């Protein structure tokens, strides 16, 4: 089986915030399962892509969702002309062929789904396919990475203790203002002072986290706003389209966010 489609050939831009690259390198050397924590849009996925590129490993990404079942991860029986045939799911593919399997926003998945990764994440490194009666030993290159947003909904959706304790974790935060401005400026190719203004606006919106907003404006949103501005959209409209309207449907909160945009504009 070839996973060439999953290989990343050009370097994804990633601005290190600390020693996370060295840490991940070390963890990969022992194939230690990794957990990336942090708010949405702060660069977790970009980091995994960057590391997959660095380590020259294919990367299989699964975006987890509420209705995801274990079958969606490991595979299922399908009906074809001659009866039933087995199809590997993304996790089984990565385990067989050797890839970094990245389960994005793992808490979104149902708790009974997440337990299928347990035998893979301790020293057994196997994936039992219960429905097929098969046991797949993990390929030497296989590594499991999950991401997890310890955000607002974590009261309802939390990882089981038995899942949590299998991972080493890197904590991601929004970068410091000047670093964030650098990232925004570089990704969207805009002037530094515009990037600084956007970062100031984002900081204001992050004050509202937990007080009306589940999450403040992410770095990703800032890049979006900056890209719109790069195409000639004025600041207030760009922020409206890229930050204010996506963040909330509450009319009053939107007004407050627009106030913040106006207040930070020069």
């Amino acid at each position, binding site marked *: 089986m070839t996973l060439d489609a999953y290989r990343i050939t050009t370097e994804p831009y990633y601005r290190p915030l600390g020693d996370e690259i060295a840490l991940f390198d070390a963890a990969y050397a022992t194939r230690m399962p990794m957990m990336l924590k942090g708010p949405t849009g702060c660069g977790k996925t970009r980091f995994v892509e960057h590391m997959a590129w660095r380590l020259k490993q294919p990367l299989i990404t699964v975006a987890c969702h509420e209705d995801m079942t*274990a079958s969606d991860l490991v595979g299922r029986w399908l009906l074809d002309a001659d009866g039933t045939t087995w199809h590997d799911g993304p996790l089984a593919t990565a385990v067989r062929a050797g890839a970094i399997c990245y389960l994005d926003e793992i808490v979104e998945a149902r708790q009974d789904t997440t337990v299928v990764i347990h035998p893979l994440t301790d020293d057994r490194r196997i994936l039992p396919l219960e429905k097929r009666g098969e046991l797949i030993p993990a390929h030497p290159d296989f590594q499991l990475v999950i991401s997890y947003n310890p955000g607002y*909904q974590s009261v*309802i959706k939390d990882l089981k203790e038995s899942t949590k304790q299998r991972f080493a974790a890197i904590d991601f935060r929004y970068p410091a203002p000047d670093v964030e401005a650098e990232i925004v400026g570089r990704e969207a190719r805009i002037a530094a002072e515009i990037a600084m203004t956007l970062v100031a606006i984002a900081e204001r919106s992050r004050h509202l986290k937990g*007080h009306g907003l589940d999450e403040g404006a992410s770095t990703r949103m800032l890049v979006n706003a900056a890209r719109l501005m790069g195409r000639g959209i004025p600041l207030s409209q760009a922020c409206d389209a890229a930050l204010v309207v996506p963040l909330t449907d509450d009319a009053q909160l939107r007004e*407050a966010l627009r106030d*913040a945009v106006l*207040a*930070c504009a020069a």
Partner: protein
Amino acid sequence: MTRRSTAGIASLSGVRAARRITALFDSRPDLARAHEAAERSLDARGGALEHGAWEEALLGLVESNLGKPTLLAFLRLSETWPHERPVTQLAMAGRSIAAIGREAGGSAARYLLATLPAWIRRAGDSQDVTRLLASLERLSRDAPDTVALLAPRLEHLLAVVDIDGFNAWMMSGLRATAEDRSRRRAYFSLDDPLSQQMLARGDAISDFRCLEPRLAAQMTALWGLRVPIRPAPLSPGAAPQRRTSFAGTLLRFPERYAGAPADTVAALYRAAGAHLGAHLTHTRHRFAIGTLKPLQVVLVSLIEDARVEALAMRAMPGLRHFWNPFHVASPQGGTAPVLMARLARALFDPAYDDEHGWVVKGRTLFTQAQDQWHRAEISRSLGGLLGNDLGQMRVQFNPRTHIVEPVYRDDNTGLWDFPDAPDAAIEDIALMVDTARIERREEPAPDPTPDQAQEPDDVGRTRAAATASMEGIPVATYPEWDHVLARDRSDWTTIVEVPPAPAGVLAPSPAANDDVARRADALARAASIGRRIREKRRSDGENLDIDACIAAVINRRARQPLDHRVYLRHIPGPRDLALLLLLDLSESTNDADGDGHTALMAEKDTAEVIASAIDVAGDALAVHGFCSDGRHKVFYTPIKDFDEPFDLPVRARLAGARGGFSTRLGAAMRHAGACLTTRRAFRRVLLVLTDGEPADIDIFDADYLVEDARRATQALRATGLDVFAFGVGDGVHLDRIFGPRYALRVPHIVALPSQLMQLYARLKR
């Protein structure tokens, strides 16, 4: 008596009414004179149809037998009826007041008539007047004794809320105080804190209410501040506050900015909020008044306003757009208020041109101190200096009528430390305080209200009523388990249902609770409890549906069309949960810990959070309370029934719940269980909130009631109920009664969401 012509009346019934009135007034010269004067005045305005309606209304008043003073009041009112108001409104008011008078008596009618010009002005158009009068008629039918109390306060009320808000307030009041007359009187004379709160938190709409969430969010977003925002308090009769104010971190906004054009209201509140935020961020200490003169106090405040705004604009240059539109002073005029507004603008707006020597001096000094702006002392020294200069210019300044300009700025009370030292020159200090507080003093205090003399008595009666209200109705008897005999004693306990204690005051919840409440809401909404449904023959699913697969293979062999829907999946069914929250209201819940918090307070907070979360999620919920006084009196209070919404009156009822007597838990649980079993739901949950273990005055065996409650729990579980307990406060051991997995401890409200999550997790199985 001369017979006046009825030429000015167009309707037949009107003419008849006029004739009849003339005949009736024949023997009462003062009434006849007043009638004639009123008629003359109305004739002069023309409008024969309206005049007829007026005569009919007057006849209605006469026939309602409300006494001569009432009639005279109406006639005098008619004579002086303002020209811009249609006579139909007067006739309408006359008819309504006759109807109200018939229910509530002549004095109520007179009070309404006496204050009518004032409040009718507030009501706006004719439709509003009609609705208002209809509401008052309804009030006179449902609570006749309150009309006279309400009349003098109507104008003030209508200044704060519109007609919808008034109706909402009135209906809430009637509901909340249904069984307590003295409470009702207090409510409608605005003396009851609940009344103020209803006015403030109910459906009343004012500009501030509309913008409140936005202002709070703005405060958090711009300044990272999470501070309480409240409307300026209402004091009956006093003029509404006209500027914002802050005390510590409590911000108060006027309900309305009188005279602000509708399209600038939002911008004005935004500017006011930003100004307060700048103060909270940059005004670190209050100024001591010391020996400053009133003028100096005002100027120090002015410089301080300019200073915090300048600092805020360094961090957020766009704030200038917030404040700029309100600096409208122009370089003309020389009175103190005008000069101060000019100075305020000069300090704020570098582009503003003003030649006045004092303004120039102020601006120069302020700009020179640029490097010192982070120090509040410069406000003090600059303000003192400029105040001195202005004083020597001999301009007119009256501290009692001074109002801070521009309009978005606060009244500066939050900047000053008012000394309370008795040996200082008291009058001076009083004046200082006045200087900063002038705005609330503009109008004289209202006349004493007609019922003030009775009030102390009413308070006494309220208390008496509260203690006597434990007289309830026996509704059921239940057996009790005697663990020594190992058998049930049949019909051993009697449940006495008592109405809820008088509604209490809703304390504003601490910010921490808001957070907990928000999380609990999200939790309850996400955790839908219901039967899981297995869906067969789906085109997508976790497993193959074997029956469908076999059918599909048979079809294929028979060369028939193939149905590809061969999967099976499980999906959650509709929400189906009924929860009864049983509150322990025994005496022990009144014990305060070191900080003065009682278990009862914790119980109420917890109940409030759970109840609103479950209500928001749309599950069925009831809240009941209990305490006991021996086995024949197990008091049981329904605070909220399943079919009631969890709205303000119910919350007030919950807030009013008080602790007393003992805890016969088993009996109360059996009754709660009986209430629950009548509900049809997939999951029926009894959740007991208690601070400790059961006890009662007639029981000396410590294990007896514990064993009984355990027995009750088991019996209820056997009937299919889920029984949980939340132990509020520290060191509560409920494991023996409920089982360790079902007895969850909530030592502090912050722990609530996680415990609630556990509860839901167990219910999901």
